[in-house]
């Protein structure tokens, strides 16, 4: 099914204000369709949705939202300032207020020096930056963004991430769609994993990465061969990291018991902590593994 877009079958999401909410999923899982639904570009065959208490597609909430498209295209005869002026005017903005907002945003996304260049001459990364600027032109309370860092170099991606986090700190709500899991992990407060049109996992980033099955890891140093051999028997898995050994256990009790045995054998216990997964690991498990 990879790459083939599917409809949304079961989507129930509630996004709280002041959070960065990430919707992740493989290609064709329905992420962009979700955004289109929220923007009123496509219509649900059943069910309903609201933004700020208004039904999807109505104009009232569009005054308060911003949208950053993936692989953005704009009227390419305009330069950055003209483009933002055009989008700002659609919100009824104008005059000095709009001009100062444009300057602020172009500086924010690192495009102020290149403001006179026509969109036609923009690189993919520049388009992505300008897409973010146009999405913020009305100082939205909710920003919907589809792959906002796609096409950006690492520095650009970091800058955009910083902008998004700054917006969250200002109390804005951000709804991100992406399959770039490493980008999403440090950014999102909550995540939903979408697969073939169904939300198969949802929770706070902390809950998802810590795991709900109570797995623990214990880290040791100064293990002799006998102790290491014994640890391999007690633990599910033992990995070496420099002069340390990290042992994974199915629960906290097993980890604690193993730790006390290792201390008796002269090992030094560094720490016992819940096992932390990466978003990538959670994602692969949620979508049923990597296809053959």
């Amino acid at each position: 099914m990879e790459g083939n877009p599917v409809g949304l079958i079961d989507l129930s999401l509630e996004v709280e204000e002041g959070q960065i909410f990430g919707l992740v999923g493989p290609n064709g899982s329905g992420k962009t369709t979700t955004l289109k639904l929220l923007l009123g570009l496509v219509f649900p065959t059943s069910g309903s949705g609201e933004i700020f208490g208004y039904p999807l597609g109505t104009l009232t909430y569009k005054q308060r939202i911003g949208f950053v498209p993936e692989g953005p295209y704009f009227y390419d005869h305009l330069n950055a300032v003209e483009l933002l002026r055009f989008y700002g005017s659609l919100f009824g903005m104008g005059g000095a207020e709009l001009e100062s907002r444009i300057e602020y945003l172009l500086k924010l996304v690192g495009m102020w020096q290149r403001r006179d260049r026509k969109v036609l001459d923009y690189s993919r990364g520049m388009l992505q930056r300008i897409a973010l600027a146009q999405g913020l032109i009305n100082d939205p309370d909710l920003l919907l963004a589809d792959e906002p860092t796609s096409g950006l170099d690492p520095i650009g991606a970091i800058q955009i991430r910083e902008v998004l986090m700054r917006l969250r700190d200002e109390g804005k709500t951000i709804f991100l769609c992406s399959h770039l899991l490493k980008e999403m992990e440090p950014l999102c407060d909550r995540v939903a994993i979408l697969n073939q049109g169904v939300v198969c996992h949802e929770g706070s980033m902390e809950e998802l990465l810590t795991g709900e099955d109570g797995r623990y890891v214990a880290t040791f140093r100064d293990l002799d061969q006998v102790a290491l051999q014994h640890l391999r028997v007690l633990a599910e898995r033992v990995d070496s990291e420099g002069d340390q050994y990290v042992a994974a256990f199915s629960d906290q009790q097993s980890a604690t018991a193993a730790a006390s045995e290792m201390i008796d054998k002269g090992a030094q216990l560094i720490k016992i902590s819940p096992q932390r997964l990466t978003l990538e690991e959670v994602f692969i498990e949620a979508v049923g593994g990597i296809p053959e």
Partner: protein
Amino acid sequence: MSAIWRIAKATFHEALRRRFLNGILIFGILIIGSSWTFTYLQPGAELKMLVDIGLGAIRFFGMLIAIFVGVRLIPDEIEKQTIHTLLAKPVTRAQFLLGKFLGGVATVFTNVALMGLAFVIVYMVKAPQLRELAPDEGPGISMVFMAPNIGKAIGLTCFELLILAAIAVVASTIFSWVMASIFSFFIYFVGQMADFLRELASPEHGADTASTIVFGVLYRILPHFEIFDIRESILKDNFVPWSLLGNVAGQAIIWVVVVLMIGYLCFNEREV
């Protein structure tokens, strides 16, 4: 209103930069500019020939521009996904459709105005010479009637293209742009033959029941584009009354409103 105006303006600037349309315009101006070289084909009626070719070229190339501008306005927005950022703003689909249409119409009118200007220049330079060549055309071609009649003919062409652009835009909300082009050409050419359709539908001319119904319906629902062509009156040097202009322009506006309303109903339900 501001959103419609902004979208129309952006559409106009985008459309003016289309090389294909500029190519049609340049070709049209070349034909108009060289129209006097064909006048030898009708010795003794050179001036009539000049007017016929000039106004005919404006209509023909205007028709091409109206269709090719109209059918690409909305599909291009959808293909390039610029429509997503626009409709994510507080812009209704009606405002979007109307803005695109008005921007397209402004483009068509600009092109017609440029071709009209080219024709007027050719006419002003060549008409006195051609009148001398065929002085017996004399009272048949009154310069008093001719100049305003040419203006009226170009004005009516604009109204004709207004309907055609509306049909092209609306067709593109339903079909692909290629299908929409074919559909628009079909409507235009069949609409030129409204009288012929009436004859085909007439039992007095031997039409059976099915033909009467099919051609009768086509006759009633299709716009009658031939009413916008006043070249015959001009060539006979009849004064074209303002009332005729008002009547035809009124019909055109009603057509445009109806077509755009149908377009809105289709586009409002369309997923983009």
